[in-house]
């Protein structure tokens, strides 16, 4: 008999007034009892609408059934069949627009907490199950993977299991991509990302950090070094600025810089070598996950007032619902339908305020969202000492500028086949944010997996 409660079993969280002062994980995860109780809400639908909403088709009712039976490790294995990073995805996927949106239980009441259950199964296995990863004997073929974000990790994970010799080339000193430099510790503990990477290392994947492809080696040189195929998963790391006056004042950051200092370089820790400005009143411009993360980090560094400034209304915010909710609980002030026009500086060139205009929503634009229009004469200044620009990123030009035969579109995204990741250059495949522009972890991972299958096919056919 299913559990017919209309609400999800709630997940314990750190109290907002406590957690907005520390960097420890906000959501604490289900206990075994909670997980079983929540899993019993699943109706095990024959037509599995939830699965169709998942970009990698996780066998949702199957793994949830295993949880109801207390078979937690088996549940984890079931997820792993199609998703190589369940502990990550359970925490950061936008479930409310994917699997959970289509859940039958959401017609009346809340959907099954699929994301929380995914996280539970993964955490349980990581903490309780001793797992051995065997090295598959090498088939003598070498594949180079550029970038160690979710796209690159997923591609490497699938190929190594088929016997390929994989070398991941990563520009930073640490592997993980956005999972380590972007998404903060309190949402995705870095030790967890490291565990996922350790599994790949155990299986024989080699990771060469400090290698900026396009600078130290070009793609053509990778082929000369004996690689049979190349996968590009270099992400979309180039920050966008608004091009408004005052953006180069001291105290204006891109979200990338702010988050990299905090997450990758650990600037939030007492005595860290990498500095960060501890502002008192901070404006974060943007409405995505990145903006929420920047705002919540700023609050944790001790800022008294943190504003989210977003030009559309809250309904259009691209951030995960849960993060918007968490941000509000933590005291972040939302200024929606507001758009910056310039940043004001003091005599010494430090930020002292941000001038904004009020916006109203007009007709729907190409993206289907209603276009914001400035209200005349609505200029007003918000007093802040730090501004964080979080209005989007695009792919970095380093690789395309050194690979003339690699086609890119007008946004600088690599042109690749959606099903195979094949690019305009023979033997070169691409996926993730480098192809789509800034998107999600699960889409990047899915693209990495598709490309892995296509690379296997390509190398076999070449023989």
């Amino acid at each position, binding site marked *: 008999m299913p559990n017919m409660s209309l609400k999800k079993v709630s997940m314990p969280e750190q109290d907002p007034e406590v957690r907005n002062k520390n960097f420890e994980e906000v959501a604490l995860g289900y206990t075994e009892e909670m997980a079983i109780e929540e899993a019993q809400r699943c109706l095990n639908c024959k037509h599995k609408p939830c699965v169709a909403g998942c970009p990698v088709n996780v066998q949702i009712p199957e793994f949830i059934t295993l949880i109801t039976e207390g078979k937690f490790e088996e549940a984890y294995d079931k997820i792993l069949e199609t998703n190589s990073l369940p502990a990550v995805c359970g925490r950061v996927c936008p479930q409310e627009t994917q699997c959970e949106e289509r859940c039958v239980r959401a017609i009346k009441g809340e959907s099954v907490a699929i994301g929380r259950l995914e996280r539970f199964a993964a955490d349980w296995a990581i903490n309780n199950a001793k797992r051995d990863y065997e090295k598959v004997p090498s088939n003598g073929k070498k594949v180079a993977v550029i970038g160690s974000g979710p796209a690159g990790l997923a591609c490497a994970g699938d190929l190594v299991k088929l016997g390929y010799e994989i070398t991941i080339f990563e520009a930073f000193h640490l592997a993980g991509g956005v999972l380590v430099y972007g998404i903060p510790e309190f949402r995705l503990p870095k030790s967890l990302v490291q565990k996922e990477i350790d599994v790949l290392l155990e299986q024989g994947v080699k990771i060469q950090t400090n290698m900026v492809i396009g600078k*130290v080696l070009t793609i053509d040189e990778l082929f000369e070094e004996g690689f049979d195929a190349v996968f590009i998963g270099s992400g979309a790391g180039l920050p966008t600025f608004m091009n408004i006056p005052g953006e180069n004042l*001291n105290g204006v950051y*891109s979200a*990338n810089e702010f988050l990299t200092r905090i997450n990758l370089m650990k600037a939030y820790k007492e005595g860290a070598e990498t500095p960060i400005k501890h502002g008192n009143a901070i404006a974060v411009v943007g409405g995505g996950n990145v903006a929420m993360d920047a705002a919540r980090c700023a609050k944790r560094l001790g800022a008294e007032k943190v504003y989210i400034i977003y030009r559309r209304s809250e309904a259009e915010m691209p951030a995960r619902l849960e993060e918007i909710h968490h941000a509000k609980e933590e005291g972040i002030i939302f200024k929606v339908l507001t758009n910056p026009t310039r940043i004001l500086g003091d005599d010494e060139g430090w930020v002292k305020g941000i001038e904004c205009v009020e916006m109203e929503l007009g007709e729907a634009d190409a993206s289907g969202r209603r276009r914001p229009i400035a209200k005349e004469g609505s200029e007003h200044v918000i007093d802040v000492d730090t501004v964080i620009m979080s209005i989007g990123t695009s792919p970095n030009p380093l690789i395309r500028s050194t690979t003339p035969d690699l086609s890119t579109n007008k946004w600088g995204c690599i042109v690749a086949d959606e099903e195979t990741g094949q690019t305009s250059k023979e033997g070169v495949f691409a996926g993730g944010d480098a192809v789509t522009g800034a998107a999600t972890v699960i889409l990047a991972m899915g693209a990495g997996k598709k490309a892995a299958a296509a690379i296997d096919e390509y190398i076999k056919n070449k023989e």
Partner: protein
Amino acid sequence: MYKIVRKEVLNSQVKLLEIEAPYVARKAEPGQFIILRVDEDGERIPFTIADYDREKGTVTIIFQEVGATTIRLGKMTEGDNLADFVGPLGVASHFEDVKKAAVIGGGLGVAIAYPQAKKLHSMGVSVDFIAGFRNKEILFLEKEMTAVSDRLFITTDDGSYGTKGFVSDVLKKLLDEGNEYDVVIAIGPPIMMKVVSEVTRPYGIKTIVSLNPIMIDGTGMCGGCRVTVGGETKFACVDGPDFDGHQVDFNELIRRLSMYKRDEKAAIERHQCRLEGKTNA
């Protein structure tokens, strides 16, 4: 791990390290830089590639001890390993159609200007090298500079060696005397590069400066290194570090370099506590 194979002390504050980094050595060109971390908790710090040896697979950096990381780096010795060493970053310097060049280094900038002079000299360009130091005690690379220049002019602020005064004074004099240059390359503290650019502006001589804003990744992903050149925002790590000195907003550069002054002072104090703690133990 990147092993230090040679260390030289050039003066009380300036040291040279030759480091094993075969991939970087293979591609390095004058004008480019690397980013290193001393150890696992270290900050990412940029240094110009002062020299490289493709055969030995080594890259040389010359640095001045100005803060916590550079002081720590200065304590390292031959055989020690650096945790991280990434490069070559930035755009290499280009010298097409140059027959006569003035290369100007100020203080530590002499070390950064030296590989440029060396490259020009090897291309058969006539090089006037103007090197400025605060005083005779901190003079370095004199022999090397002599070897790669047609004429070497040394200045000291206090007159303890060479001409008394600034490098810009010598350049001004050379120009007034009718010397002509296809290019002036100025590397040193921002204020020196600014003054040199002002000296050459009325003569319309192309002036290249090497900018050193605060950097993290060095690959164009943070924008922390942005500088204004000709009214446009550029990322020095990928668009530079070389820029047209007549177009650079030096005041903004100087201001942005002071972003963490207070934190840096605290870091040195912490560092000294640690060192003293160690000697007591």
